[in-house]
């Protein structure tokens, strides 16, 4: 069965037709290398500059502070690894949280092998970091605080402005993984004292394989990919012009529609959350009920396991995702759900549904009916249920 209701927009989104249309000429007409001097190359360069402007505007950055990468993971890797190298004179201590994306956590593990000392902050049962704990963790060797803007699993939005203020007071760089937040919540890098910020186009109806790292002017971060002089010599490689153009359009679109779109999403989200909690017994909402991405809904259904739920939903044409081990290639349950205190077997029975711009109330009503039936069936199967 074809997917009819796509509720996994935190994993990736449909590239909007407008974005694809904007990209197309750069494949077969204006395909010149943007580093070239001739006219067809200059058209590529202009297109890149325009996209950079479109993106910079969304977060209140200067155009030349936006560095394109191949996605959010590369941006995260770059921010951490290159900061660690550039500031080794100052210290080796990095502060992050236990609920970061693997692009941050695995990079931190890698840096630990290279001599970094990492503090992984705890979060509370809603997924929020404790600002006092953060304060206490800072020491003279601290070179970087990297805390995600919003969590990809449970949707919790961290107190970024407050974190930025603390970082600034202590003269420590502040990086935020905004892959889930960019285009969903207002961001202002100056107001929030953000020094570096990662983002990825495919989360906001842009193309896959393109992202950016915002680097505030003055931050002495080295390049991550060495080679040609692209991206002000900081990130080598022939520019992915169609991808960049698509990203620019997607960013502009996301910013322009943000208010209206997220208002609608918040309403749908809260409507659905309320009905699920009321109509499906033994169910818990994960993440903060208020400080929450407008499109994120994450539930734990006790006694059942996530993958089974996902497959059955898929058979009904509904695409969702799970903190369940089985979907990620690893068998460990979601580190995020464990970090907010869920026991293993409850973490396993979780379901993340994330709204996209096309989702209607009817879609959610249908989804709820399916969930009710499937959860019922799976509980019948479960040896834990009657216990």
């Amino acid at each position, binding site marked *: 069965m074809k997917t009819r209701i796509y509720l996994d927009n935190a994993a990736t989104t449909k590239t909007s037709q407008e974005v694809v249309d904007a990209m197309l000429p750069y494949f077969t007409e204006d395909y010149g290398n943007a580093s070239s001097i001739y006219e067809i190359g200059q058209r590529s360069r202009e297109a890149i500059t325009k996209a950079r402007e479109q993106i910079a505007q969304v977060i209140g950055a200067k155009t030349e502070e936006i560095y394109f990468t191949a996605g959010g993971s590369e941006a995260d890797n770059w921010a951490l690894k290159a900061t660690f190298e550039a500031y080794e004179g100052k210290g080796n201590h990095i502060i992050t949280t236990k609920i970061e994306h693997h692009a941050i956590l695995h990079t931190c593990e890698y840096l630990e092998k290279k001599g970094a000392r990492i503090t992984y902050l705890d979060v509370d049962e809603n997924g929020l970091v404790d600002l006092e704990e953060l304060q206490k963790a800072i020491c003279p060797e601290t070179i970087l605080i990297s805390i995600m803007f919003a969590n990809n699993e449970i949707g919790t939005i961290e107190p970024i402005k407050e974190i930025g203020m603390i970082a600034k007071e202590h003269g420590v760089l502040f990086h935020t993984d905004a892959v889930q937040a960019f285009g969903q919540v207002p961001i202002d890098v100056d107001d929030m004292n953000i020094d570096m910020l990662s983002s990825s186009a495919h989360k906001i109806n842009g193309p896959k394989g393109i992202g950016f790292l915002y680097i505030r002017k003055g931050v002495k971060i080295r390049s991550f990919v060495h080679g040609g002089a692209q991206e002000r010599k900081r990130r080598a490689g022939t520019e992915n012009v169609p991808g960049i153009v698509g990203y620019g359009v997607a960013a502009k679109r996301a910013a322009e529609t943000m208010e209206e779109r997220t208002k609608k999403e918040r309403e749908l989200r809260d409507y659905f959350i309320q009905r699920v909690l009321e109509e499906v017994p033994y169910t818990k909402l994960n993440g903060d009920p208020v400080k929450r991405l407008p499109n994120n809904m994450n539930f734990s259904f006790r006694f059942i*396991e996530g993958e*089974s739920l996902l*497959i059955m939903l898929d058979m009904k044409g509904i695409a969702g995702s799970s903190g369940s081990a*089985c979907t990620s290639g690893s068998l460990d349950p979601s580190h995020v759900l464990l970090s907010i205190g869920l026991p293993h077997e409850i973490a*396993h029975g979780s379901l993340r549904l994330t709204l996209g711009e096309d989702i209607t109330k009817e879609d959610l009503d249908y989804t709820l009916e399916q969930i009710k039936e499937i959860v019922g069936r799976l509980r019948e199967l479960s040896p834990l249920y009657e216990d």
Partner: protein
Amino acid sequence: MYSEKVMDHFQNPRNVGEIENASGVGTVGNAKCGDIMRIYLDIDENQIIKDCKFKTFGCGAAVATSSMATELVKGKTIQEALQVTNKAVMEALDGLPPVKVHCSLLAEEAIHAALWDYAEKHGIKIEGLTKPKSDIHEGEEEEEEEEY
């Protein structure tokens, strides 16, 4: 990702449920993925498995292998049932993805656990059956050939 047979057994699992006053019950779990499988056996005086039921908290593969394993042991003698290895279950299901091999081991071990329970209750010894681990957690994943 799953074969048609797996999907069939997952969607329409055979032998779901419990057996009251079962001759043997075995429960095993995998600490890593957190999944749990329980198998109930009804064994007659000729050591033939008259009935077999299961309950599973686990992934699609876990449900399908439970279902297939119960089908495979039903009507068999205890000795025959011991031959129902995870390989046999996987073959009967037209294979499983590598990361799901452990789910079929869960089924094998659950049957063994149920047989062990039966043997203990009846004070007998089943040849070739050793006490099953209740926790299946190592050695069953395909090794990644390199370290990264």
